[in-house]
């Protein structure tokens, strides 16, 4: 039997051991020590009178270095009292024994007791639309009967967060294989309900008369917000997250959680006033803008500002690179990422984006090197798997690519890019059902992923379900209204459905978007419009012309055909036409490949299939209208270009015959 002093000494030693082991990430040994620590018989707690704790405990029982202190004296005292349990729970959490961790502070019996009373006494607890009045009344009824255990907020947070994690783990386990029979994306975290009810009760208890929570430090609000967000209760979630952010600004996950709730730029702007003015808020703003595929000088200026504060921050460097990526400036993006790679060679985060860039640029050796690097650092990271998958996709080994994307998803089901990319691979493999499912899951994970929407549209287009395709294309176009490719897809889809007028509109929009886009890059904003200095995609022009023809608007058709032919000759005629052809062909590449390269104004496209077709049409049109000279000229041009020579020659002959006939 230990004397009291020995016991105290032993306890102190054990506490120190737990902290030291856990500091060195020796989680198992920390756990072991913590188990031992809490198993020491705690006699003095019962012996010592309640009031003596105020003076004695902080001095004797708490090792000074163990944990961060708390400014709130009440909380600090609670924390000090719970220190042993806290250490135990923490080490359980470190060892990923979540349920056990939660049970340290909130044994299931306690939890179920609270919940059952909360459920019966608060019938409206599950419907939290009423905030002000009903909350107050409910609080009064519940506090009268059940008290939540008196715990420090830290311990409470840990316990509930452990509960949440355990639920997530179970959810993943229940889903079994990626895209297997049980993986419908509808598995839910069964603990969410429990946590939200508990937190609701807790907040009710602690809300004072004027509606603010006493002594709350923001963490529990964050957890509540997150749980609500998972429950798709987004307005509420945002409310609580904002609360949390106001209470404690430095919690980046809270900001991230908020970012994931923002679906469009307007929301962000609305939110702008409500977030606290803090550097994190600033970063959050930039991050969310990037997530929403924003680009522009404003954003890059803000990023530069940040970069001057944190010159080597990998996160901000990534943002810079992503910005370049979103503006389709792949060379710059590549350079940024490459630089990032040199600065932080062991960092795998967001290298999947880099692999996308390399994929689009078709830099196979570099992509292979990246895959090598990722695999060498950690081959069981979702990012690594995505990079490898991308590499295989570039090698056209689509089965293997799918395999690696699946692996990425097994590691992390919320890995957005993997879902989308897997969808692309399934399209390549002509497995449309799987492709649709993958895209769908991608969209479910993140509704802002225009590539998944676009992919869905594409897949339905392949299946010739144009109405569906149109819907999805529209979603994609809504996310990227300045991206011509989206509009072009919408336009062609409409064309196929025979809605030519709308189609023409959409395609014109595409033309406009392209030039807007070019102008945007050239940083002279607003110079877009119909009188474009940039060249336009002859394909689109041809399509528009075709539709006008079908609408029997000959004049418009002709003018667009002329325009199309005119694209051949920009200011400088020397652009390699083959490049454009390749780009135009690879429409299924994971990212949209834009016909125009750098966006320099004034260079023509040269002869392409589209312009030749247009020329042929014009020649025939000239024939019909009897403008034989023009027809002759166009046909000979066709012969010179070496496209559809036979038809052109026939045309020439016919023109001669007609001319002779006229001459006669």
């Amino acid at each position, binding site marked *: 039997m230990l004397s009291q002093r020995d016991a105290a000494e032993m306890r102190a030693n054990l506490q120190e051991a737990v902290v030291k082991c856990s500091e060195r990430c020796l989680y198992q040994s920390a756990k072991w020590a913590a188990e031992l620590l809490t198993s020491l018989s705690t006699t003095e707690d019962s012996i010592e009178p309640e009031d003596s704790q105020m003076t004695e405990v902080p001095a004797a029982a708490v090792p000074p270095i163990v944990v961060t202190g708390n400014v709130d004296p009440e909380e600090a005292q609670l924390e000090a009292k719970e220190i042993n349990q806290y250490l135990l729970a923490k080490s359980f959490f470190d060892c990923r024994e979540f349920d056990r961790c939660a049970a340290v502070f909130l044994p299931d019996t306690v939890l179920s007791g609270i919940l059952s009373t909360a459920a019966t006494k608060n019938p409206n607890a599950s419907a939290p639309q009423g905030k002000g009045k009903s909350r107050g009344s409910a609080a009064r009824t519940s506090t009268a009967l059940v008290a939540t255990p008196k715990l420090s907020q830290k311990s409470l947070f840990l316990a509930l967060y452990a509960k949440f994690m355990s639920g997530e783990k179970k959810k993943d386990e229940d889903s079994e294989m990626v895209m297997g029979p049980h993986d419908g994306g509808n598995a839910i975290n069964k603990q969410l309900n429990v946590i939200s009810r508990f937190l609701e009760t807790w907040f009710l208890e602690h809300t004072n008369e004027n509606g603010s929570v006493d002594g709350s430090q923001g963490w529990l609000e964050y957890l509540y917000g997150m749980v609500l967000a998972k429950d798709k209760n987004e307005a509420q979630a945002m409310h609580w997250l904002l609360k949390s952010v106001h209470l404690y600004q430095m919690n980046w996950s809270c900001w991230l959680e908020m970012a994931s709730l923002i679906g469009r730029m307007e929301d962000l702007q609305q939110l702008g006033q409500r977030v606290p003015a803090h550097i994190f808020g600033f970063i959050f703003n930039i991050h969310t803008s990037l997530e929403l595929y924003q680009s522009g000088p404003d954003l890059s200026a803000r990023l530069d500002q940040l970069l001057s504060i944190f010159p080597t921050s990998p996160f901000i460097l990534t943002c810079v690179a992503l910005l370049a990526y979103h503006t389709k400036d792949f060379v710059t993006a590549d350079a940024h990422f490459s630089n990032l790679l*040199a600065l932080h060679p062991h960092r795998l985060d967001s290298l999947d984006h880099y692999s996308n860039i390399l994929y689009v640029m078709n830099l196979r050796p570099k992509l292979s090197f990246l895959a090598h690097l990722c695999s060498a650092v950690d081959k069981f990271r979702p990012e690594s798997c995505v990079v490898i998958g991308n590499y295989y996709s570039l090698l056209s080994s689509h089965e293997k690519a799918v395999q690696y994307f699946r692996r990425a998803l097994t590691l992390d089901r919320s890995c957005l890019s993997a879902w989308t990319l897997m969808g692309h691979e399934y399209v390549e493999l002509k497995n449309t059902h799987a492709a649709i499912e993958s895209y769908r899951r991608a969209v479910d994970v993140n509704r802002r992923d225009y590539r998944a929407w676009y992919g869905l549209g594409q897949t339905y287009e392949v299946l010739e379900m144009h109405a569906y395709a149109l819907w999805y294309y529209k979603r994609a176009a809504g996310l990227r209204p300045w991206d011509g490719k989206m509009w072009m897809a919408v336009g062609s889809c409409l064309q196929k459905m025979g809605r030519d007028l709308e189609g023409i509109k959409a395609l014109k929009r595409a033309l406009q978007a392209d030039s807007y886009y070019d102008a945007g890059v050239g940083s002279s904003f607003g110079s877009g419009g119909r009188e474009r200095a940039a060249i336009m995609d002859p394909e689109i022009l041809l399509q528009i012309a075709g539709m006008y023809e079908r609408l029997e608007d000959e004049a418009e058709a002709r003018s667009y055909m002329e325009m199309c032919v005119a694209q051949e000759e920009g200011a400088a005629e020397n652009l390699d036409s083959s490049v454009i052809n390749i780009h135009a062909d690879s429409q299924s590449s994971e990212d949209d490949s834009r016909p125009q390269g750098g966006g320099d104004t004034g260079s023509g496209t040269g002869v392409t299939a589209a312009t030749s077709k247009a020329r042929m049409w014009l020649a025939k049109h000239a024939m019909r209208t009897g403008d034989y000279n023009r027809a002759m000229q166009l046909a000979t041009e066709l012969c010179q270009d070496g496209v559809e020579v036979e038809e052109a020659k026939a045309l020439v002959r016919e023109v001669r015959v007609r001319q002779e006939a006229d001459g006669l």
Partner: protein
Amino acid sequence: MTRFLTPAKIGLLALIELYTDAVVPSSSTIPILSFIINQLLPCAYKAQPREPKSLQTLPFILDLESFEALLTSHPAAGGLPGRSLWDHFLRKLWEIDSLDALHEFFATRGNLLARNREEIKKDGELGIPPPSDDMILLSRTSPLGSFIRRAKVEYERLRFSDTLSLWVAFVEWREESRTYWAKRNGGLERWAGDRVLAEGQEEWGLEATEMLEHITYGALSTENSNQGGISTDDVEKLLEFQVEQMQKLGNRIPHEVKEQFKAVLEKNIIIPSLSHYLNFLDAWRAGDYPTSFDNLHRYFDYTMQNRDRLFYQYALMNLAVLQADFGCFDEAVAAMLETVSTARENKDMACLNFALNWLYHFGKAHPKIMKGTDSTNILGVEREGLAFLRIKAKETGMWTLWSSSLLSEAKLGMSNGESVATAFENILKSSQLIVEKNMKSMMGPQMAMHSSLWGRLGVAHLSRQYCDIFLTCHARYALFDDTLRFTTRVAHLLAERGRYDEAMEKLEGLDENSLRTWKSNQYWLKYRGILRLKRDLHRNNLSGADHLLSQLTQCNSSDTDTDLAYETNTLHIDYLIRRTNYGQALAKIEQMASEMKEEGDDLNLRIKLLTMKALLQDKAGRPQKGFSIAVRAASIAWRARLIPALWGAMGAIANILTSLSEFQASSQILVAIIPRALEYENCTLNAQLYSFLVDAYMGLAGQAESGSPTRKENLTRCLQFIDQAFDEYSTVEDIKGQCEIMAKKATIMRVVGDNVLANDYASAYLDLKKGLSVGA
């Protein structure tokens, strides 16, 4: 570690491409192709190399040096003058400058193959012109073609991490040639061989690039492990070869090879199950019963998954052989009987026949155990069983079994004392079969049969010759066990002629590594013991002999070789006789005789035993009592044409006749047989016969009147033969025999009346006796 691909195989692929590029001049085609083929074909199909040296020239894992050695000497047919094929080859290797290039390399391998019709059609659709006729294209089914296709498929199925390890291993493998390649190219950049790093350096700076290199190629710079240098395919090949060698030669793995094996097997994660079999063989050979048992089970546990129950009978068979080797005969028989039934069930004739053959031989060796199990009717009566086996072997084309059953039949005939002609016929049949089917492994038993047949016929030098032929010509391809048997046989023959040192030398000269095999080692040790025992007995070093005997008889339990056991027993009897412990000697003889009767042992041994008994009676001073025995021995020996045994028996009869004062008859017999007996070159027998002859002439001299010329004549004959006898005894260093002769000689001299000489001989006798007592 990959399944198939290694850097060396990439090198081979590059070499094949070099060949198809037509830069190989026609004069160098043959060495290069044979180099490639040597690597590709399984060793079983390779012809035996003309000189054994060329086998060692190539290492198991091809390194760059072997490529270099091959290629530098050949100039290239095209390109810059002064460039050898080695330069072209290196260019190919160094052109693979990124993981992607490696992929490209494998992807383009298909271009080396001849197109089939569909591909031509597809190419035509895509607008690719068919390859011109003067290109070297490889047929898809040729060794090179199939290698290329296999390599392609194997590369396809590699996981990414495996591809990576292949790439890293390749980079490392290639590193050796960096200095040469740099010299040739006027200096190389730091990052040659990885394009991305080279390009990235400008962007990242040296330090960051080095950091990245360190992460990607990590192990390359720090430690020199050749992970990925070997593939499972290579290891499997190696294991197969090793198992084959072990089964063929019956050796254990030499220490240094074992170390290397360990190193190889440690590296890869997929251990081929064959390695367990290898461990089993080694442990078995080492006499480590539990380990071998464990490993055998492990091997079959692992193979069971792939092949179902199909190979159950083989597992059982191995088990049975193993059990028998460790002296667990009952278990062995049970296992083998189950093998028989399983093999019958599965209609696996080969296995069935083998099992039956084994059972037959086992039954011969351990009749008691076979009697215990009620399995005698499996093969019916011995001879029928053999005939059955022979016919079955013929039907199923198991040549080894066929020839061994023929040899068994010959042996059976011989040990039963049947017609020598039939035995010869069987041996010849088997010989023809062996030569026809080139069964090198059967050469041992064949030669042994020949040798022992000639030995039984009393032509010692022919017998010896066969042994020598085997040892010089066939030992290389045969089981070590056979080599050991033959060596002991030669040693035995040498010892019979008193050349102990030579015999010992023969035994000592055996391969040390092979002697690590537990069974062989036991046999070898025992035989050495027997040799030394024999010599000790002859030198009358009885206490030393006693020591050796006690050791030898101790391990004379049922699991030792019957021949050895017999030898030990006879020596034991000899020892008892020399101790003049006749009663025990007789008891021992009786015991042996009864055992033999029970087991139906070799006739030859039985006759020898009978003769020994007759001579023992003579030693005990009652030679007449042995008469009937001696006569029986002689008659049996005559019938069975066991010539040496016949002479021994006849000698015993002559001795008895002498004791009956039938000196004339005795001398006549001896004079008739001695020349033939000399052919057999057994000194002890010769000495004995001469000494009997001396006795007979002495008797004749005694019958003649004193002083008569007949007496004198007989006495001079006596002297002549007594010298012969003395010489014979001296050669085998039998001091006791020498003493006896010397005493006789002194007596004769006294009878002749030459007292001085008699005195001399007497003192010589005393000297010998002294030596004897000193020895004792």
